[in-house]
């Protein structure tokens, strides 16, 4: 399907070129096929074309996940990349070898509009900035069904023990699955581990640094191993939906939106998909940060959004830069809000949110408003992330492997990534 899609767009591009060889300038854009990304890119490019009538855009879609990583890397290496592309920030961005493959944006007039805390996630080893964020910041945590909570008289848990007590009450009540898991889409299995990072850094403030330096390990750091343990615990308690091995990400959203399941660990970008697939249940879904051991340090692990990048040597780099310059404005934020609604705080200074945001988003915003209640996920602090984590978490979450051996296996898995990046001390 991918290939035919690409062929289609390639052909369309050829026809477009041969037809409109006049003064008009066409930029090609490669984005992932997530409906939100598509809607945002459509809206931003349309807004830019309206202000600059000479410029049109040809948008090409690619799959997400590992397959998408592969396409982006291969096209950068073979110099077949589009004029602009959207891709992750943080550790995945570093794996693109940005200093060699991407166009630096240090002279972008609106670069100063980007919030300081975002810049390190799109900065290469040489100190140059390469990307402009095209979405809002996200939280990783647990979606819950408000109707189920109200029916059983439960309150939002502040510790993992309270969370498990809620699960026990839900399981005792009968037909609602306490926790939805969707291991057919393996990436969804990582949440309990990755979204636990706020709790890890609360106990081990230097974990990210020591982890990059090959000193700290998941297997030998109890706080870090807790995420794997949580996965094992919910499986062993029998709290999962019956078809956890075959269910998909849309199934998980359906379960938590309709009350078939009470909880679904996920990133808050899912608000967009819930809005699209289950508009009537949008405000039945609430959100809380993944709780840790102590109620005193309850906070949210946050994910930085994807950026737009320009490949080095793009023929249309000047126009592409001007488009990215536009994306870094409050005007662009408003275009995004109009296209997909408000899904979280923007990373452009001065961008506000409308008053009526979905319930899950308004549950998330207080974490951002108080100091010390958010921490970036590990992948934005360390370039070391192993490719097999999602298979390992599926194993733990399905009772194939226990938490301790999973943590040890993951420590072994990240070694390859560290060596490939040429990090010192590995």
């Amino acid at each position, binding site marked *: 399907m991918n290939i035919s899609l690409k062929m289609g767009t390639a052909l369309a591009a050829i026809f477009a070129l041969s037809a409109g060889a006049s003064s008009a300038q066409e930029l090609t854009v490669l984005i992932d096929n997530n409906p939100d990304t598509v809607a945002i890119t459509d809206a931003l490019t349309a807004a830019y074309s309206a202000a600059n009538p000479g410029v049109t855009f040809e948008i090409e879609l690619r799959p997400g996940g*590992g397959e998408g990583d592969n396409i982006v890397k291969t096209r950068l290496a073979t110099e077949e990349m589009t004029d602009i592309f959207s891709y992750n920030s943080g550790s995945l961005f570093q794996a693109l070898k940005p200093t060699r493959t991407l166009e630096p944006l240090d002279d972008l007039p609106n670069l100063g509009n980007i919030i300081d805390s975002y810049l390190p996630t799109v900065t290469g080893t040489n100190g140059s900035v390469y990307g402009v964020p095209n979405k809002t910041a996200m939280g990783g945590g647990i979606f819950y069904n408000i109707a189920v909570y109200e029916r059983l008289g439960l309150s939002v848990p502040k510790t993992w023990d309270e969370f498990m007590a809620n699960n026990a009450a839900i399981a005792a009540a009968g037909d609602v699955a306490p926790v939805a898991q969707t291991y057919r889409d393996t990436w969804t299995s990582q949440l309990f581990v990755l979204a636990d990072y706020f709790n890890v850094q609360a106990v081990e403030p230097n974990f990210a640094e020591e982890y990059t330096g090959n000193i700290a390990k998941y297997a030998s750091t109890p706080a870090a191993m807790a995420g794997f343990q949580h996965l094992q615990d919910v499986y062993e308690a029998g709290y999962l939906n019956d078809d956890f091995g*075959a269910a998909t990400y849309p199934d998980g959203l359906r379960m938590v939106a309709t009350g078939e399941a009470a909880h679904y660990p996920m990133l808050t970008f899912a608000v967009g998909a819930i809005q699209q697939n289950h508009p009537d249940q949008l405000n039945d879904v609430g959100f809380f940060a993944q709780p840790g051991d102590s109620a005193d340090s309850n906070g949210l692990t946050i994910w930085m959004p994807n950026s737009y990048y320009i490949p080095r040597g793009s023929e249309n780099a000047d126009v592409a830069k001007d488009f990215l310059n536009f994306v870094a404005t409050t005007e662009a934020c408003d275009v995004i809000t109009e296209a997909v609604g408000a899904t979280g705080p923007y990373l452009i200074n001065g961008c506000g949110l409308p008053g009526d945001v979905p319930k899950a988003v308004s549950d998330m915003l207080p974490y951002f408003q108080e100091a010390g209640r958010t921490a970036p996920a590990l992948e934005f602090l360390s370039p070391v992330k192993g490719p097999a984590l999602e298979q390992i978490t599926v194993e733990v979450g399905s009772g194939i492997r226990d938490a301790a051996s999973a943590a040890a296996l993951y420590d072994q898995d990240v070694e390859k990534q560290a060596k490939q990046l040429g990090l010192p001390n590995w």
Partner: protein
Amino acid sequence: MRRRSPYPYWFIAPAGVIFTVLFLLPTAASFWFSLTRWDLFTSTYIGLENFRQFFSEPFLLKGLLNTIVYAVVTSGAKTILGLLLAVLLTSGIYAQGFLRTVVFFPVLVSTIGVGIAFGELMHPTRGAINVALAAIGIDGPGWLVTPSLALYSVALVDVWKGVGLATLIYIAGLASISPEYYEAARMDGATRRQQFWRVTVPLVRPATVTVVILSLIGGLRSFDIIWAMTRGGPGFSSDVLASVIYKQYQAGFYGLSTAGNVILFLLITLIVVPIFMYFNRREVEA
């Protein structure tokens, strides 16, 4: 004595150039890159480190074992079922031509499509297979989500899809057996069973060699159907060599995945060449 070819060597030049550019050079290059840490931009020579890394992957041994199990199971089932179906479909039964088409049809369908369709059919709670089993009171297993079962479920679908080709080869093989052998056997009072074991099986040997070799190679390098149905999961339980290699490639470990391909190449050679020689020798002796 070996007879000299009547054609001059430059006759092979066009094909030779294509073969060299498209096959020999990439093969040689892949042997080189398997010895490097390669990110598509630069490569650093690291000796046999990739091979050491590949063999120390904890899921690799599982993948290696799965590869062999998968190849033997699918190849064995295709050979036996293919022969039986071919005998049935050459016996002059009702609607023979139509039934041949039915058996061959799955071969023509896209593997990915088959994988996705069966992925739905084998869904543990709402899949058609388990719904049908539940209707007659059987609690169906989680075909693709039970670690011990996933690989065999995929193998089952692979056999369903591939048996048509084996049947076709066997039908051709059966057609080349002269009816006189069967006449002679019947004159000697051979039963149908004896005719099958004493006449059909030995004389259809060339077809058997083709089917075994093709399906074994196909099974050893099988990837698309496994990827479409389980992605090697749950966890690593249905990983085969090809899916392990693909995941390394996806992760950007290009040198490492090239080393995996070299290993796969050697493995297929080590398994298939002796089998090929064995069958050929037997054929000469027979």
